[in-house]
């Protein structure tokens, strides 16, 4: 459905996206994973055909640069920054974008979306008065107005609290199960594991891995740091020794212990310490 060949985007001397190639089949859910500045957002903008690029990107055989209108008819987009016209009210905004998408804003489909995303009671409110989370939901409603086969989402849960994030992810999973193709960028590992069938790992604009989410940690190494707190300083030395004994890099730091952890196995040091009879009172992750 989506074919990307040697996609390259340069801003002056900076190469934001460097010769990346991949295919996405219909119905797949694919994550673009990478740290901030890895080139995820730029790659998505190239796919949408809103910035010029080198290489070839096609969506259902439509070249997204030369046939961008036709390609964008098949896509719905949820941006990272919610850039609506703040002076318009919600229903005006939906009506405006529905006209551009050649669809209606007064269908059962739209009403159900508004209900499902909790926007129904906000339709007379100015967009500028909505919270970041509500704007994100509005962006999803707009993306789904014409029921496109492909959804492109840039950090879709970046502005959402924990509860809203879970709801949003559940809806995206439903949409994927109903046959929609998802391509989303994220730097949240949990989100990628929950939602993606495949992960494309970007590093400094280059595609360094194309793997299932379960294998993502192999490409990332010990990136996260866990700080453990105990009931009293007497546990600090045995905790460090226990963790070092299990191959972790751990060190005492003030009243706690810092330990480097493997993504997707962040709680493992806690269970190891519990097995060793060392009770962990609290923890924080960096």
């Amino acid at each position, binding site marked *: 459905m989506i074919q990307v060949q040697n996609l390259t985007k340069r801003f002056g001397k900076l190469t934001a996206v460097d010769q990346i190639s991949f295919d996405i089949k219909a119905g797949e859910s694919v994550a673009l994973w990478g740290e901030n500045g890895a080139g995820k957002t730029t790659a998505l*903008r190239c796919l*949408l055909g*809103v*910035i*010029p690029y080198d290489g070839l990107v096609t969506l259902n055989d439509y070249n997204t640069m030369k046939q*961008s*209108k*036709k390609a*964008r*008819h098949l*896509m719905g*987009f949820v*941006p990272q*920054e919610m*850039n*609506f*016209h703040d*002076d318009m009210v919600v229903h005006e905004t939906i009506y*405006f*974008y529905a*006209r*551009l*998408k*050649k669809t209606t804003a007064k269908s059962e489909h739209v009403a159900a979306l508004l209900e499902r995303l909790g926007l129904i009671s906000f339709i007379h409110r100015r967009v500028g008065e909505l919270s970041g989370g509500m704007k994100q939901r509005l962006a999803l409603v707009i993306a789904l107005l014409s029921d496109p086969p492909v959804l492109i989402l840039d950090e879709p849960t970046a502005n959402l609290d924990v509860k809203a994030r879970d709801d949003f992810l559940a809806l995206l999973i439903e949409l994927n199960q109903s046959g929609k193709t998802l391509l989303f960028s994220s730097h949240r590992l949990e989100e990628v594991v929950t939602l993606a069938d495949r992960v494309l790992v970007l590093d400094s604009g280059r595609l360094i891995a194309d793997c299932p989410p379960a294998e993502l940690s192999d490409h990332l190494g010990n990136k996260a740091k866990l700080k453990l707190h105990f009931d009293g300083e007497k546990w600090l030395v045995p905790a460090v020794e226990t963790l070092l004994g299990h191959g972790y890099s751990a060190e005492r730091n003030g009243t706690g212990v810092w330990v480097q952890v493997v993504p997707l196995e962040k709680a493992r040091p806690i269970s190891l310490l519990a097995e060793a009879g060392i009770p962990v009172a609290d923890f924080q992750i960096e």
Partner: protein
Amino acid sequence: MIDLSNVITLSQKELNDARRNRWFILYAVAFTGLALALSWLALSGVGTYGLAGFGRTGASLVNLVLLVVPLMGLTLGALSLAGERERGTLLYLLTQPISQAELLLGKFAGLALAILVALVLGFGLSGLLIAWQGGATDAGNYVTLVLMAFGLALASLSLGFLISSATGKSATAVGIALFLWLLLVFFGDLGLMGTAIVLRIDVDQLFTLALLNPLQLFKMAAILLIRSNLEVLGPAGVYAVRTYGSQLLALLLAILVAWTIIPLVGTYLIFKKKGVL
């Protein structure tokens, strides 16, 4: 292929936005207020209301148009793309199934209509004031003057769009637009006179230089409409009338149209090359 329904949708939105745009409201109120004030003065200047008519009031409005309309077109045009680019709304708009040309045309048409509304309001209320005082003699010329002012507005708006497409920040775009306005308004006549004296250029070259300024084009066309000659503009005006005769007005208006089309094409090319960032 341009989809007209997209252009209409975008221009309607632009027109709605103009109602909430403080710059536009300020310009519209200022233009209407000054137009009414000038009409009142033009009417009272002859001692008896009603004797001035549209011709005299139109002449007094020419200077107002030369001052306010380019300022309105240049700044609103400069704010249009740069402002939306800065807010990120331009990027989101272009992720919809619309082309860059449709977006440009829609925004341009919407702002042009908004300016037309402001012009019609200003000229219209002034016209009503004159008609109320019994001076409705040159109504046809008055309407032509409004249309020519609209032509100047389109050329200014187009130049504003060109500035907007080339700059990333709205403050920079407005700064450049104001500088250009200053250049066109205050250094039009004075600059030409100065250049003519210093370089000792011929009268035909002086006239050619005047054609490079859309404000001069409007001024010449408006004076030609009201007085049927350009003697008031000196040797260059006399030369223009003698050389081009009855074709002069059409020539001036055609160049004004070119001043609208060429910057707009330039805007499209820059926009296409730069993308929305």
